[in-house]
């Protein structure tokens, strides 16, 4: 049976194309793997009769001086960042958190109605905004105090930052679709009462003192 011969043949007896293909295959499997894989698991994904250990060691040597190394931990193999480049990585993984619904709503209202005071946000949201929600938004770096309204109590107003535009892939705040555009895009399922502007109220002259950004 030919299989027996393949199994007994050593790596060098394969054509260079086959060896190259096997290396490529191994590379792709290890790259896409969600967890380190043992030699046996890898062999099961490769063509039958492949000398997995020889291939793994060849790949390990090829990557030894690169920014990414092929590491063996116990029985399992995985690509990892070279240890001397560890400074590029987070020491402890940053926690990825989804913005809560109230935070998302508040952020959207700030984006659409900026500069806007907390009382005005609450008026649109219809519920009081907890201090935590605004704190989270300030922590994201997407929202910052913009100034004080020249009304009794001189309330603080909020607006969005450049990081906000970067994160949401907008070139300007005016890229946000207006109410009529939200409706046309199928995002707003309500009749817009007459008197509500088709476009969001951008570019209104500020009637407030701006905070000193450097201060």
């Amino acid at each position, binding site marked *: 049976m030919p299989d027996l011969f393949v199994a007994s043949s050593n790596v060098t007896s394969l054509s260079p194309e086959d060896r190259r293909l096997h290396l490529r295959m191994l590379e*792709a499997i290890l*790259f*896409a*793997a*969600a*967890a380190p894989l043992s030699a046996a698991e890898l062999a099961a994904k490769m063509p039958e009769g492949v000398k997995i250990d020889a291939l793994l060691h060849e790949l390990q040597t090829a990557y030894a001086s690169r920014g990414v190394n092929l590491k063996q931990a116990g029985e399992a193999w*995985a*690509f*990892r*960042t070279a240890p001397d480049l560890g*400074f*590029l*990585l*987070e*020491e402890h*993984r*940053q*926690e*990825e*958190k*989804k*913005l809560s*619904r109230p935070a*998302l*709503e508040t*952020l*959207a*209202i700030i*984006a*659409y109605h900026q500069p806007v005071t907390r009382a005005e946000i609450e008026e*649109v*949201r*219809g519920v009081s905004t907890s201090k935590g929600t605004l704190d*989270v938004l300030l*922590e*994201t*770096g*997407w929202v910052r105090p913009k100034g004080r309204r020249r009304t009794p109590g001189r309330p603080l107003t909020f607006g969005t930052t450049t990081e906000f535009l970067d*994160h*949401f*892939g*907008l070139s300007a705040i005016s890229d*946000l*679709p207006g*109410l009529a555009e*939200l409706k046309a895009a199928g*995002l*707003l*399922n*309500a*009749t*817009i*009462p007459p008197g*509500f502007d088709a476009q969001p109220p951008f570019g209104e002259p500020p009637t407030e003192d701006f905070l000193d950004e450097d201060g």
Partner: protein
Amino acid sequence: MSGKADFFEEDAAPAPGEDEVLLIDVDGFEGPLDLLLALARNQKVDLTKISVLALAEQYLAFIESVRSLHLQVAADYLVMAAWLAYLKSRLLLPDPEPPDEPTGEALAARLAFRLKRLQAMREAAAELTAREKLGREFFARGMPEALAGPGTSETRWQAGLYDLLAAYAAKRARHFASSIQLKKRTVIPLAEARERLMRLIGPSTAWTPIDQYLAEYLARPDMRATARASALSASLELVREGEIELMQASTFAPLYIRRKSKEKASA
């Protein structure tokens, strides 16, 4: 046309099968341009060689056949039909040309251009879907490692533009819903209608159109529907109780009402 064809109905229509397919698909078309494109493809020639005149005729015939079946045809299909009829006349009777208007040929070229463009976008969409795609044919790193960010914050916040827009839209929608001033509808309660009807009819046992008793309401558009509805419900109730009688000659004919005579009622 040969005389023989007149005797055989199945020969009269050159391709009945195709028409049937189109009829069944009428709901499947996404607007008049889509229908035109389908008809153009049925010409079984390259789109660059379509005859706009033949196409216009096919479209008009198709819409006519759909309408003859008393099927609802959406307004934009009819607008296109009207425009194609106009185009047809411009193509067949090129003189005299109305001044300051594009020629029939220019209009036809414009239509052909739009059909070609739509077809090109259909093909582009198909080519896009046929491509090798991320997560299908090629893949990202299965074990990504977290990169050191510029900040030192513990959390990386996740939010997408769609979520942001959807949140805002939902909030505004609820706001609109709560701020809508519902016009107070005047509704005549059944009890009131009943009492009123009995009072108006009085002792009269003469057949009288019910609308006559409602004249006061029928003059007011906002009251018309509710007055009729309440009066009808009340009258049905009164008939059941043997107080009055109703008569209608035919569907949609005036409804006549009278008090049931006491002798009959007691009989």
